[in-house]
């Protein structure tokens, strides 16, 4: 009983962090929130999968999430904003209040969707699917509604966090390779993005993707 209360708490915190990410304009705070979400993800395999999955896989997932999502990538991002000396998202394409409302609609839809979709494995926790989909939605919203390259990378990270939560449903039978692939690819993608970001900065002396608008029809 106590255990399941903790588990629910973690899920709720992840969704609350989604809202925080949508509402905050200070990039440092947003990066910290994404890092906190990554660290929370590291707790999930321990709470949910420890009795169904081999201990090695659980630890690999948990430590992988903590190191990559909770520490390494947030540090890279903090380093990037320090190098480029940017502090805040000034003019989001969609304002902070509308993004919050859209986020709320997304969460409601995620719960509606997951109650309409019968889980083939009913023994799994019922909050996994709605939390995963809300987080994916938040990530998508961040990517399309923010102008700064850093904010878009954070959005992509949050999206991947959502996918990771969904992956917990499969951790008992998915081969480890696929899961390792998830973490590695995430790292690689953001790393490459970081390099590109560096070049954008040098080329345009700013990290504003609005300047990337020469190419159009």
């Amino acid at each position, binding site marked *: 009983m106590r255990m399941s209360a903790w588990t629910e708490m973690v899920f709720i915190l992840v969704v609350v962090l989604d809202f925080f990410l949508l509402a905050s304009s200070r990039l440092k705070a947003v990066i910290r929130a994404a890092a906190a979400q990554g660290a929370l993800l590291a707790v999930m395999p321990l709470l949910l999968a420890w009795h169904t999955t081999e201990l090695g896989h659980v630890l690999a997932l948990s430590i992988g999430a903590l190191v990559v999502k909770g520490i390494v990538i947030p540090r890279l991002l903090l380093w990037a904003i320090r190098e480029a000396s940017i502090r805040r998202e000034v003019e989001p394409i969609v304002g902070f209040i509308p993004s919050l409302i859209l986020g709320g609609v997304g969460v409601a839809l995620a719960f509606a969707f997951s109650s309409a979709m*019968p889980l*083939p494995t009913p023994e799994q926790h019922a909050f996994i699917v709605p939390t995963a989909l809300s987080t994916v939605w938040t990530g998508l919203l961040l990517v399309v509604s923010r102008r700064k390259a850093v904010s878009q990378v954070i959005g992509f990270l949050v999206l991947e966090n959502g*996918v990771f939560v969904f992956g917990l*449903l499969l951790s008992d039978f998915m081969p480890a*390779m*696929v899961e390792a692939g998830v973490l590695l690819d995430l790292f690689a993608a953001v790393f*490459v993005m970081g390099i*590109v970001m560096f070049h*954008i900065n040098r080329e345009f002396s700013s990290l504003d993707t609005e300047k990337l608008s020469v190419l159009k029809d």
Partner: protein
Amino acid sequence: MFFVILAPLALAAVAFAVPSQGRRPLALLAGGLLHLAGVTALWLARPAPVLGGWLELDPLARVVLPMTSVLFCVCAVYAQGYLARRAERDNRVFVGGLLVLLSAMTVVALSQHLGLLWVAIELTTLTTAPLIYFDKSARSLEAAWKYLLVCSLGIALALLGTFFLALAGAGPGGPRSLLLADLTRAGVALSSPWVRAGFVFLLVGYGTKMGLAPLHSWKPDAYGEAPGLLGALLSGGVTSVGFIALARVVQVCSAAGESAFARDALVGMGLLSMALAAVFMIGQRDFKRMLAYSSVEHMGILALGLGLGGAAASGAMFHTVNNGLTKGVLFLAAGNIHRSYGSKRVDEVRGAARRLPISGPLFLAGFLAVTGSPPFSPFFSEFSILNGALGSGRWVVGGLYLFFLSVIFVGMGATVLKVVQGDPTGAPEVPASGDTWLTAGPPLLLLGLVLLLGLFLPRELKLVFDAAAARVGG
């Protein structure tokens, strides 16, 4: 089977290690030739699946792998001439990245496991993004950034879709596996709402990779700014393996009894892509961007053929080969024209046929081929898709298909003729950039292949196309 995957990787390592700027492109040639030899041996030997069934030369792989290999070889020859002219640029990442790309495309073509398939598709995105930035200009940086961001989003959604499919088979008695053979054997035992949701996400994800409308936004920028050589490999190779990935997903949907849903979605997206390409092709002022919209159109044709099934699906498999080879001709020729004029704007470039006696006419011939003029092979594949549409009583679909094809013919023709015809005196000129055998020979060879496939299609190949179509439930 491991040879065709590992040989390019090993050569990529060599390319990264070799210090000599001039010798490095030879690794590309070696990789291409070894790969082609390996693929030929595989084609003839028909080996059994390896790695517990994760890799197999199934009919879909038999369609796309030889085409990719030939295209890469031709591009590798072209690269010798191209990189020699761009000696001032560091080509370490370019050569290494192309070889890793070849390896990743091979894995996609052979993969029978949806997880492995996804990893390999992601790898094709990661390796090509830095290559688009080869010119190190602000414009190419913008193109690379858009490409990376849009494709990463697509790839992330495709992973979610893959998870949905895995979950569909997770119930009691389900396959609990992502191997195609297990999933198709489970058939209707898969949970159908999750199969549908999975298909939607995978269609969005791999559709982004293919560049189907409305997920094509990266394409004109990336193709417009990338070197012609990379454009040829992206539009001929990467999008084709994206199509194969989508075909594998359709395979699962058909087995799960959800094919009607999947096919309607594919037909709709196919027609939308053709319509959008037609709109943007008319009055296009940049001939490389025009080629990108042509690629959107042809991905639409492939999706349409896959969605219609039957004879049209077989036509779509044939069209995968034809489109890949013809795009090679067009992009390499366009690259030569771009380099000779130092511009890709239609109002500045004219008289390419006179200044570049091989590339200019090749560009025109490639245009005729890709828009489906006989006797080139795309005519026959596009015709069999039309045949499939009308044969199954889809008159509206067939009519729209013909209408878009003719609008595109006129729109693309106007742009191509402006580039090829006229008097080149007074147009901008970059010295020492005329046709040489190394830059004009490779596209000429590809055009010869396209013509040959149009005049004579071996029975063997026809059988492979039919088998591949049957695989996707045609």
